């Protein structure tokens, strides 16, 4: 018995995992790109197995679902796509500074909801009492403050008591959801739905809100990029992210940086909430953000703290989500199909990170080839 164990111990395992040296950037991005393309193809293949439609036809349905009938001169769906990308991107942008600081803010959902609540309260209470030119700045300021407050609470606890920020921000989401539920209960009356309010940063009908929302986020993308790359704050964030001891050694006030960064993160979430509530829905409910706050975590992470890569990732994911939703609708699959589709693609991309960081050596195969 003992002998056997000994031989087993000495036997080389079937495969072992070796940490790679840093991969060249183009190689790493090549792997990611191939993973995305292959996983999309596999999912489209599975879709066509489920629906009996061909793969090209499936792609066509997805394309139609996202862009509509552009050839007939109707660009509404395209604009809507831009807007959806903008909202998700805005949430991901909010998380980017925090993630760069290695502060895992999982509370975008709640922070955006609170920002939206701020906007909603202003819209309901001040509608008709103030001209739009005065109301809009008030909405903006209130929702930014609401989002920032919701973001800074976990940061303060992290800075002074070293609490776990992942759990803290996550729990804050549920509190926010319940506050919204209560607000809807008070204001909704019999139907438990707040009827849309006319006032807001953009009219609810027509095409203007698509441009206003997308425009605001486009500017925000540039601002976040410059802030992280060229400002002193951005430098401090990356130092704190790399090593808090180094940061302290070179005289950075770590507590201050954590709190300041989360104020910004929460504030941008607040903006996202404002865009949803006062730019699109003109009403609020617990599902206003609709889980996008969680998808944004993936987007910010996949974007590697670069707003422009985040933009590309967001554009791909929103396309897939809308497109897969359309496949589900027109082939009468369950609406959860879109979530499964996107979920698997994201899972593949996350999985490929493993192969970028590590390599798998199989026993016996190409022995001595590499070492």
């Amino acid at each position: 018995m003992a002998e056997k164990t000994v031989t087993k111990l000495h036997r080389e395992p079937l495969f072992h995992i070796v940490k790679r040296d840093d991969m060249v950037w183009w190689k790493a991005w090549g792997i990611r790109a191939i993973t995305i393309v292959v996983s999309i193809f596999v999912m489209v293949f599975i879709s066509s197995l489920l629906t009996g439609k061909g793969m090209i036809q499936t792609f066509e349905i997805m394309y139609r679902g996202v862009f509509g009938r552009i050839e007939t001169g109707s660009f509404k769906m395209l604009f809507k796509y831009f807007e959806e990308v903008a909202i998700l991107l805005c949430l991901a942008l909010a998380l980017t500074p925090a993630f760069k600081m290695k502060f895992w803010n999982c509370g975008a959902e709640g922070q955006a909801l609170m920002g939206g609540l701020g906007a909603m309260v202003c819209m309901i209470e001040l509608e008709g009492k103030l001209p739009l030119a005065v109301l809009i700045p008030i909405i903006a300021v209130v929702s930014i403050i609401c989002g920032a407050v919701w973001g800074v609470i976990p940061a303060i606890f992290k800075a002074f008591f070293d609490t776990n920020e992942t759990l803290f921000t996550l729990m804050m989401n549920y509190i926010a959801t319940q506050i919204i539920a209560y607000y809807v209960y008070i204001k909704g009356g019999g139907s438990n739905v707040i009827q849309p309010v006319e006032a807001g940063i953009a009219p609810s009908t027509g095409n203007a809100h698509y441009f206003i929302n997308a425009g605001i986020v486009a500017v925000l993308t540039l601002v976040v990029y410059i802030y992280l790359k060229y400002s002193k704050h951005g430098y401090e964030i990356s130092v704190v992210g790399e090593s808090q001891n180094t940061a302290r050694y070179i005289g950075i006030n770590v507590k201050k940086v954590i709190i300041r960064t989360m104020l910004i993160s929460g504030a941008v979430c607040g903006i996202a909430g404002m865009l949803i509530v006062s730019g699109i829905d003109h009403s609020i409910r617990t599902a206003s953000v609709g889980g996008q706050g969680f998808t944004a975590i993936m987007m910010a992470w996949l974007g590697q703290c670069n707003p422009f890569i985040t933009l590309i990732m967001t554009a791909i994911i929103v396309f897939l989500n809308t497109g897969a939703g359309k496949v589900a609708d027109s082939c009468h699959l369950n609406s959860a199909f879109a979530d499964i589709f996107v979920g698997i693609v994201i899972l593949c991309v996350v999985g490929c990170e493993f192969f970028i960081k590590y390599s798998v050596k199989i026993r016996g195969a190409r022995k001595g080839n590499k070492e």
Partner: protein
Amino acid sequence: MKRILAVLLAAMMVFAFVACSPAEGSKDLKVGFIFLHDENSTYDLNFINAAKEACQKMGVEYVQKTQIPESNDCYTAAVELIESDGCTLIFADSFGHESFLMKAAAEYPDVEFCHATGTQAHTSELKNFHNAFASIYEGRFLAGVAAGMKLNEMIAAGQFTAEEAKMGYVGAFTFAEVMSGYTSFYLGAKSVCPTVTMDVKFTGSWYNEQLEKEAAQALINGGCKLISQHADSMGAPTACETAGVPNVSYNGSTLSACPNTFIVSSRINWVPYFEYIIDCVLNDKEIATDWTGTIETGSVVLTDVNTAVAAEGTVEKLADVKAALLDGSINVFDTANFTIGGETVTSYKADVDTDANYEKDTEVVENGVFYESKYRSAPYFDARIDGITLLDENYG
């Protein structure tokens, strides 16, 4: 590894090119359906099945969007159905969808919009927005007759006295739609079992399995001998099955889950309405602003009676009562059959036209009959008649 990949890729290619057949459907109409939940809700399942059946029968293509909440998402869903699928007829199934559907209707005057259970089409300016409902109170009345007969059978068997004959009803909200339903159910039972009374509990939700189960259990504990419900989950029927209490269901048969307690179920069959609107659009006819389906149009139907549970002769009796409803010799809300505060009703103002103050605007009692669904398709009977006790109230 490479070989597997190559085979897989080849398979994908074959699939891509071979399966490219043109979409079926002959006529140049695509219908878009917007549903509040998905197949797991009995309410939506009833619509989903009807959509499929009607569109297949009429040979038109359709697209359905499920899980669409009563929010701006409904407007977005309508826009998407029009813009990306090219639908020219849109239907939504939930009461709260109405205002958002009207917003889309205003924006797309060339597209027809139909909405079940809504109340605003008959007062709205929009020519392309239509409401529809069915006289489901007639179906509930029939189901009530089956319930009354079961009670009679249990009384005759000595399980309880005639005075103890009490039914329980699990309602969603204290709205006219639910009140009209339980009142007609009660009147149906009373028409064969004159001593019957009824307790009603509200859950405050159209779909909450746990709450519906608890409400049914509470009613059973309170001495109710038979349960019916107007909420969309399996909560009440399964509670009845566990407790061994007979159940009259709604929206569709629950026979498979509750073989020992299910008696019969009433439901609205939406196929006739869907066929009607599709036919209107195909042949350039005007769609009625406010359409009420009846037993006659085939919109109000009962499922097969579960003879293992129902009283003997139920099937024959239901056929007789149905015939009487059809020829007009029975009116469900005949004022001779119920009293409010001990008095017979001679006049009743109902809130027919939607306004912010819920103003009671229309006289609905004529010739000794409360005319439900006459002035608009959606129910407006919200009187509280003697014999029914509301254990609680819930307006959401």
